[in-house]
């Protein structure tokens, strides 16, 4: 069997629901595509804690502080698990962190924005994590088995975050007029990034991540699932979704909405978001400040790397 025939057999295998393990033979294109996907996911988990950590010291009660600290710990743990999956595909962790800090690789759009109030903590944990879990649940069927297994564990933990976020939002909605206004304000600011989060609709025929079953569902399908579950849950609280065109089209069997700002998405994920550079700088400073830990644990050879 030559290289092309071997690759064809491989793609037939994954195309029909077959699984791939880390030490199985795989075409370079597939390896690169999985690596890029998992690395971006790991980066997002690592950078995603920065908006939330800003609120640990300002959490309103001890229990909220513990829950938020625990969520931040979970997300950093997810980053570690995912970098581990990515490392086995051939790219060293140090290189992935260096690329992230230098702005050469991306992280999710929603983590490039500021947090303005405690209500943002609720909206992020409830709706950003919900939008994420919709896609992460689909990733449990990924053809790359080490990633799929990791996603099962991550989804289990993310479901706690969603409950935590929903609890924060519900508490505020049952509070004062001012608290309700803060939640509405947070929703108004986060709705745009949330609608962009799954990315523009792609042509299934050309989306190789879909074709190779690295991911199991397309961008638009994920957004539709998110809307179907969460629009009713948002509205039942008396919150207003800031999109006058949002409605369910019974005839078409799908949600209609104002076109998300794809230019904003492209600009934000390439490092031009309102907080992109500040958060990357935080990561760089933090990395430098914790260098002594890596030196102490790994010895001088690692320090030089």
């Amino acid at each position, binding site marked *: 069997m030559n290289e092309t025939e071997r690759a064809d057999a491989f793609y037939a295998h994954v195309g029909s629901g077959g699984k791939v393990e880390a030490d199985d033979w795989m075409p370079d294109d597939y390896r690169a595509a999985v690596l890029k996907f998992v690395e971006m996911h790991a980066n997002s988990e690592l950078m995603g804690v920065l908006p939330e950590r800003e609120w640990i010291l300002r959490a309103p009660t001890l229990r909220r502080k513990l829950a938020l600290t625990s969520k931040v710990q979970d997300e950093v743990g997810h980053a570690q698990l995912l970098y581990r999956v990515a490392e086995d595909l051939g790219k060293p962790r140090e290189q992935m962190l260096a690329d992230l800090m230098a702005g050469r690789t991306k992280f999710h759009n929603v983590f490039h924005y500021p947090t303005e109030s405690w209500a943002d903590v609720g909206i992020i944990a409830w709706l950003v994590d919900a939008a994420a879990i919709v896609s992460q649940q689909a990733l449990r069927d990924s053809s790359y088995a080490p990633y799929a297994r990791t996603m099962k*564990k991550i989804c289990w933990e993310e479901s706690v975050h969603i409950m935590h976020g929903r609890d924060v939002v519900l508490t505020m909605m049952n509070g004062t007029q001012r608290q309700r206004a803060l939640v509405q304000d947070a929703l108004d600011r986060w709705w745009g990034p949330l609608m962009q989060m799954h990315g523009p609709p792609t042509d299934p025929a050309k989306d190789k991540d879909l074709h190779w079953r690295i991911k199991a569902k397309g961008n638009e399908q994920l957004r539709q699932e998110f809307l179907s579950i969460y629009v009713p849950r948002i509205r039942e609280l008396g919150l207003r979704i800031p999109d006058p065109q949002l409605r369910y089209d019974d005839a078409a069997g799908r949600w209609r909405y104002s076109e998300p700002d794809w230019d904003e998405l492209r600009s934000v994920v390439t490092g031009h978001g309102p907080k992109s550079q500040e958060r990357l700088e935080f990561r760089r400073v933090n990395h430098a400040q914790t260098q002594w830990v890596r030196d102490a644990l790994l010895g001088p050879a690692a320090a030089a790397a």
Partner: protein
Amino acid sequence: MSEDRLAGDEGTDPTERADPAERGDLVWEVFRQESDGDPMIHGGSVRAPDEDLALHYAREFYGRRQESRRLWVVAREAITELDDPDLLQPPFDRSFKKPGGYIIKHKLEAAKARAGEPT
């Protein structure tokens, strides 16, 4: 941590530094037991320079929510794998090795009917 690892080797070839094993940083496979009496099931892997830290990471990643009764860490290099389908999934009929390979319904009915007949 051993003295020689702390001492290190300042003259290491930079091309070797990317290899975790060269720096004494290994991959450890983690196995966990969910409840007493359950089998140890593979959970994932961690990277650490020694067993103590590997267990510490395993505890943080696989025991944070009291979801594990017991954890094992095993150096990945200590695992020997067999995944040859010619040996594990041979294309021969192996039904005689499984309970489902024996379909007795009609034979049992026939035998019972015969046993009920006057001899």
